[in-house]
């Protein structure tokens, strides 16, 4: 695994400002140099499918824009003044101060400053997200744990039956997070649960965070991100958690996940099965309607599978593609620098589906190295491949005549709104996009087996319905 990076798949811990923006009504306040916040916006909003500044993001984010004097004399005073002014100017239900490298190195105590400023009217928490502390996956953990730790310092749990909190994908870093969270919420509500989804347009906002201690169960849908928050809740409020490392994609894993939740919460079995059955019935009909394409074009479909993804997205998608679509595992490049325990979980979960996943999980955050490895493998295999990647991989896919799904940041080729790649709907969306690739003949040919251009054209008439 390289530490020096050419093609970035994430930004620094301060990128968690975007996680704060993911909470409706929350305002990030940046205590850092003048350019830091903009960089996060550039990578995680523009560079992640043009997600926009939204309600409080982009250039609107309050920032100390720390300069020489804060570096020499410390920046706590400036932060204190900024906070007072922020309360006057910016509407907010929660203010989260995130510090950057300048404050981190000179040792500003942001937690203390925010503690001194926080009131009932303007609840404020502070976390150290200095860029050198790690990537924004880590930053996301720091933020959610910081909010729970500080906002809910005095909270007493009053458990409400059927209420669950969900910790899963990282807002903005997952380009599809908005759609994904809507889908996760939808399927859990399908079980009759009340869901604090915590981020996104389907969240009630900060009130959901106040409600965290009252949940009957915390659900972690990721191999490691969010796990610390769930453990913190267990220590603090006694809330049990269900750690489902697999972010479910498609029918099998989604149904399995829902059954696991139902079982953990001892939900009514019949009701659970009714919901799952109705979802599956719908899904299966869609799947079967793909049958014509799958059978007509069987020799031309992609079967070799490469994933360039974070732990959560990669694991869920890898399982779906091998379990339901019958793809042949080639490599899963895990980009988020997961801890060792998570790696073991991911490996075991993959091999549970297909032994061919053995030795195919590779930790590598530099996409330049990944691209090279994928290209070398494709050259050996000579099989139509499916690559889950990003805009970094566009040239590779075009050059090697393979299908690319824009699946992880950076994505500068598509505008993304409410699309999901998780759950039942995510499985269907994936199939739609994967097999559309076969018809994207400007970029992907069907000359896989040495067919000539002429044969391809004949084959093209078959595509339009001619008989030959």
């Amino acid at each position: 695994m390289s530490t020096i990076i050419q093609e970035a798949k994430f930004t620094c811990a301060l990128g968690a400002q975007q996680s704060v923006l993911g909470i409706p009504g929350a305002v990030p306040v940046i205590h850092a140099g003048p350019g830091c916040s903009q960089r996060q916006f550039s990578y995680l909003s523009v560079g992640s499918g043009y997600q926009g500044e939204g309600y409080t993001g982009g250039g609107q984010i309050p920032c100390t824009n720390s300069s020489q004097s804060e570096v020499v004399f410390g920046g706590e005073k400036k932060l204190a003044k900024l906070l007072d002014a922020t309360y006057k100017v910016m509407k907010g239900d929660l203010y989260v101060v995130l510090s950057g490298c300048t404050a981190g190195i000179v040792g500003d105590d942001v937690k203390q400053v925010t503690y001194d400023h926080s009131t009932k009217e303007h609840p404020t928490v502070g976390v150290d997200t200095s860029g050198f502390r790690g990537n924004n996956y880590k930053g996301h953990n720091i933020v959610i744990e910081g909010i729970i730790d500080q906002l809910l310092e005095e909270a007493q749990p009053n458990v409400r039956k059927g209420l669950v909190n969900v910790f899963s994908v990282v807002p903005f870093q997952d380009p599809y997070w908005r759609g994904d969270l809507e889908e996760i919420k939808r399927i859990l509500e399908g079980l009759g649960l009340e869901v604090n989804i915590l981020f996104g347009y389907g969240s009630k906002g900060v009130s959901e965070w106040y409600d965290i201690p009252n949940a009957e169960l915390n659900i972690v849908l990721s191999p490691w991100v969010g796990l610390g928050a769930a453990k913190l809740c267990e220590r603090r409020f006694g809330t049990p958690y269900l750690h489902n490392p697999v972010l479910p994609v498609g029918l099998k894993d989604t149904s399995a996940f829902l059954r696991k939740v139902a079982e953990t919460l001892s939900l009514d079995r019949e009701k659970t099965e009714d919901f799952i059955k109705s979802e599956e019935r719908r899904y299966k009909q869609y799947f079967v309607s793909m049958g014509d394409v799958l059978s007509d074009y069987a020799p031309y479909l992609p079967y070799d599978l490469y994933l360039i993804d974070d732990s959560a997205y990669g694991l869920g998608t890898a399982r779906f593609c091998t379990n339901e679509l019958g793809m042949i595992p080639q490599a899963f490049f895990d980009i988020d620098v997961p801890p060792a325990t998570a790696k073991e979980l991911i490996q075991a979960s993959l091999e549970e589906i297909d032994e061919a996943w053995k030795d195919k999980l590779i930790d590598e955050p530099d996409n330049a190295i990944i691209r090279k490895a994928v290209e070398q493998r494709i050259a050996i295999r000579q099989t139509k491949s499916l690559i889950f990647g990003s805009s970094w991989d566009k040239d590779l896919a075009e050059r090697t005549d393979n299908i690319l799904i824009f699946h992880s940041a950076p994505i500068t080729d598509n505008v993304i709104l409410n699309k999901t790649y998780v759950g039942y709907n995510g499985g269907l969306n994936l199939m739609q996009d994967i097999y559309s690739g076969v018809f994207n003949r400007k970029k992907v040919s069907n000359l896989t087996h040495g067919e000539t251009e002429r044969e391809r054209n004949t084959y093209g008439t078959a595509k339009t319905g001619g008989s030959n």
Partner: protein
Amino acid sequence: MANATGVAEVEIRDTRLKSIMAFHGKASELQEFSRQLKKPAADRCFTQCSDCAQMCAGTVTNHVRGSAVVYHSPMGCFANTPVQNEATYNAALARGLEPFDVRSVCSNISEKDTIYGGLKKLRDAVKLAYDRFVPTCIFIQSSCAAGIVGDDIESVADEMAEELGIPIVPVFCEGFKSKAWSTGFDAGYHGILRKIAQKPEKRQKDLVNIFNFLGTDTFTPMLAKIGLRPNYLVPLADLETLRTMTEAACSTEVCETLGTYITTVLEEEFGVPKVHAPSPYGIKWTDEWYREIARLTGKTDIVEKVIEEEHKRIQPELDELKKELAGLKVYIYAGDSYAHNLGSLVHDLGVEIVGMTTLHHDMKIDGEDAQHSTLQEMIDVAGDIEEFTVCNKQPYEVIKHLKKVKPDFMIVRHMNMTILAAKLGIPSIFEGEINVSAGYDGLLLTGRRIKDLIKAKKILATLAEYNEFPYTDWWLDQEENYI
């Protein structure tokens, strides 16, 4: 600026050019403050995120063909690279050149490096960039973390330049050092002047240095009319072009904020005369620019005829455009100097300038006196502007000006700032590429763009209807423009 290149770091604009970040009043009043070098207003207490010198340094050093860039920083400072990559690739295509990708790596400074120092990592990163890209030269971008910890980047650069046999250019662009992000331009140029530029062996009498951003090839046809060639600098140029820019007949720029530091040093230390005329935006400024370049290159005899013919050529369409655009009100949000360029430009289209915000203001200018600042030149051609402000983005402030003067459209030159207008239902030209607006044809093109732009009003009206701002009523009702 005697012996500017004799020191490792260029003096920041805050002290060298007396840059300011806050002002509200008339354009002429700001010009008066500038003449007296008097800070017109106190700093803000509430600030929204600004931008830093590292970003501007990148616009100079990240697009040199054949080069590599090492960010000596944590990953966050490196986060513009995907967007930059798109820009470089597309800009090369637009200029009719072979496209290429940005070739950069990040040393990825960790917590440990902030304690024990990050120089080993920097060396490894430089070596990796050298091995992986086989570059002609390597730029090292510093960062807040590296700067505060005190990593001696200069020594590593010198050692490794010797070891690898290529120029290695340290760029001191730590974000915390200057409040004016444009300081980053100077930091990038300073490195190039110190480590790459050579004393000229000859003069190329028909070569004109054009300091620009990633822009299209506007200047070949413009200069060809008086028998000259543009030497586009620095983005998309290669190492040899940077080495020999000192041989040019003269230097000019598309924006004074971008270029005056390097054009002044080239004049003072390398003998390349600087074009003392505003950039070619709008008719009068283009005329003056042509005349001044002609004077420096011995083309005075033919330039008047060119100007006359050009005026005649564009007049019919310009008349049409003026008719169509009559009555429109514009707000300009850019610069420092580029806002003034735009002022000169739109005035010639007969559009009324109802307000202007520049993103900072240099009260002094490298190599030019206050009388010839672009601010004064703009006031001279376009008249005074009543609603004039200086602020480094700060949408909470600009929203008030926009609500007050209600422009029909905006011209904006900073990423992520058109959205403010859009949320109010006002369409903007995002002036990302500015070469296209230069010269007589740039004037016509701007007019045509405005004509089309107005069509965006309907969809943006929907956006405005659905949008909600995060500002309190208290703030929106305040008389003050900022706190």
